[in-house]
């Protein structure tokens, strides 16, 4: 089981999940999950659908009871606290504005439940709507809003009660591409203003990377890796993680210290290891030159495919015998299929997974 140990012990975690387990008939949805979220942090819980991340969210929200384990928020054990007294606000994927209420009434919903007077809650709702750039929308019906607007109202409705923790369930996935960026900026700006702790649950690695300070990657009910987005990209825990984060280059090698042998090739890495390993390198990290250089890790290659994606040029390179790698270079660099080139694999970019099951030491900082 992977434990997140990235923070000094003197710092009490804001949200602390300890050995959280939930079984449904026939499946273990979540298994002995440990997770710490610091106050004011944005953490993304990322994983493919069915990995247990939604169940985890529901347990934190209090909708689903864990079979065992504890949920602690701000020093208080929440297991037996009903959802309405947890101080945890939800923003669900579909927005879910109450259709029988106006936008203003939706935003003020939590205040009304807390017995705030009508005048005060109207004033606060209008101020909150201004913060999500929906001034003047208070009297509209939710059915008159676009998807992005509805999502912003949902955000305002949750933030107005100043929750200790804000849970966001796939907040961007229902929106189209250009709206996503706008929404993401807004969420991050509001988070910076309110300093609310945020847990974003998503299956979309791009959403997780841009939204969060740390990512907790979850597969089949277990956490596999908890790290900064950069760290997960550069040093994935295993091949599953690497593939999930968009890794495409994998090959077997024999490591002798920093010198790794794959077939006839000798590569140099920054990482020290002995024994057979699985090597990976991100396709963006490979540099491609048309002229030869006398540098380590610079290998002659043939371009066998060239695909233009607009922001990138995706090359498939045949290196020596039997090794095919993808290199994603800037679109301004152009290559012909069949062209002979030089591929440079930076030693710092060559990462490995040992074939043994023992977690490698680099994992725990």
């Amino acid at each position: 089981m992977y434990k997140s140990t990235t923070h000094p012990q003197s710092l009490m975690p804001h949200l602390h999940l300890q050995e959280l387990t939930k079984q449904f008939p026939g499946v273990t949805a979540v298994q002995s999950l440990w997770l710490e979220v610091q106050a004011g942090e944005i953490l993304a819980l990322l994983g493919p659908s069915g990995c247990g991340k939604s169940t985890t969210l529901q347990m934190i929200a209090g909708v689903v009871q864990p079979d065992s384990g504890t949920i602690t928020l701000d020093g208080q054990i929440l297991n037996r606290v009903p959802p309405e007294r947890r101080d945890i606000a939800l923003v669900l994927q579909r927005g879910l504005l109450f259709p029988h209420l106006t936008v203003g009434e939706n935003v003020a919903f939590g205040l009304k439940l807390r017995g705030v007077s009508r005048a005060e809650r109207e004033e606060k709702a209008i101020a909150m709507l201004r913060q999500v750039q929906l001034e003047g929308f208070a009297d509209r019906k939710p059915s008159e809003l676009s998807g992005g607007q509805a999502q912003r109202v949902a955000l305002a409705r949750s933030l107005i009660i100043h929750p200790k923790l804000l849970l966001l369930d796939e907040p961007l996935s229902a929106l189209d591409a250009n709206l996503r960026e706008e929404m993401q900026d807004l969420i991050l700006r509001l988070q910076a203003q309110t300093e609310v702790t945020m847990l974003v649950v998503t299956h979309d690695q791009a959403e997780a990377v841009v939204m969060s300070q740390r990512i907790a990657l979850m597969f089949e009910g277990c956490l596999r890796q908890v790290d900064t987005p950069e760290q997960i990209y550069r040093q994935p825990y295993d091949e599953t993680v690497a593939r999930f984060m968009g890794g495409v280059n994998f090959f077997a090698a024999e490591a002798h210290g920093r010198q790794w042998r794959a077939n006839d090739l000798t590569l140099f890495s920054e990482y020290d290891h002995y024994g057979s390993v699985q090597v990976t390198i991100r396709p963006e990290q490979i540099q491609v030159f048309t002229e030869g250089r006398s540098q380590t890790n610079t290998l002659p290659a043939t371009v066998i495919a060239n695909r233009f994606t607009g922001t990138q040029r995706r090359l498939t390179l045949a290196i020596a015998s039997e090794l095919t790698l993808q290199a994603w270079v800037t679109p301004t660099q152009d290559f012909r299929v069949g062209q002979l080139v030089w591929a440079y694999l930076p030693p710092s970019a060559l990462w490995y997974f040992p074939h043994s099951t023992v977690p490698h030491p680099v994992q725990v900082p």
Partner: protein
Amino acid sequence: MLRKSFITLVIVVLFLPFLPLVIWSFAQGWFFPQLIPDQWTLQHWSQLVSPTSRVIEGLLQSLAIALITTMLSLLVGLPAGRAIGVMDFPGKEALKLFLLTPIIVSPLATLMGIQFVLIRLGLNGTLLGVVLVHLMPTIPYMTLVLTSVFANFDTGYETQARSLGASPLQVLSQVTLPLIAPGIVVGALFAFLISWNEFLLTFFVGAGRVFTLPMVLFTLLQGGNNGLVAAVAITSVIPGLLFLLLASKALENDTVLGGFGNV
């Protein structure tokens, strides 16, 4: 244009049978060769409101029974409909089928047994006994209507409301009930009309002591006073029609059930 004339045709066909009733209720005798009666009178209508005809008494009892029946079937149908509509459990399909049995099986088949039980309980011939037997057809209808309403209901709204600080009771009153209100109106309409028009069950279980409007109508039909029968028949249609109009008004500007209100 074609659509409009078609609707007009339907309305005419539906309401045409009421025309003779209306004429009868104002006629002082209406015999074969006459196309319309020679003499008109308000006598039947004044007879209707006089206590001797017991029409008002029947009307009030019918109303009381129908309202109590509707309330009770809502009380059972709401949680049952929610459970069947939202949750997944083994035997759900069988339960749905089982719910239909009181509608499929004729009450004649079960009446003897029911009456036997009610007599033993001392409920035969009481208002409560009649309400109980009216619940037999109304609960399945109510439950089935609310099941389909809850099947389309997103429980995410409830989760959302609770995370904002609403207790289960507040969720029910401020979120769930307002959202499924159109479904409740439809279910209540069904239950009310079934109870309002129920004759056979009331006749046996009421044992002549519970005197609802259909009982009044039945007694009068035997008496042969056509004018009064017509007036009572018209009266008996009015509450249902009013309820229907109110319901369709309530369903008109509804966003939750989509096109349900345009039935």
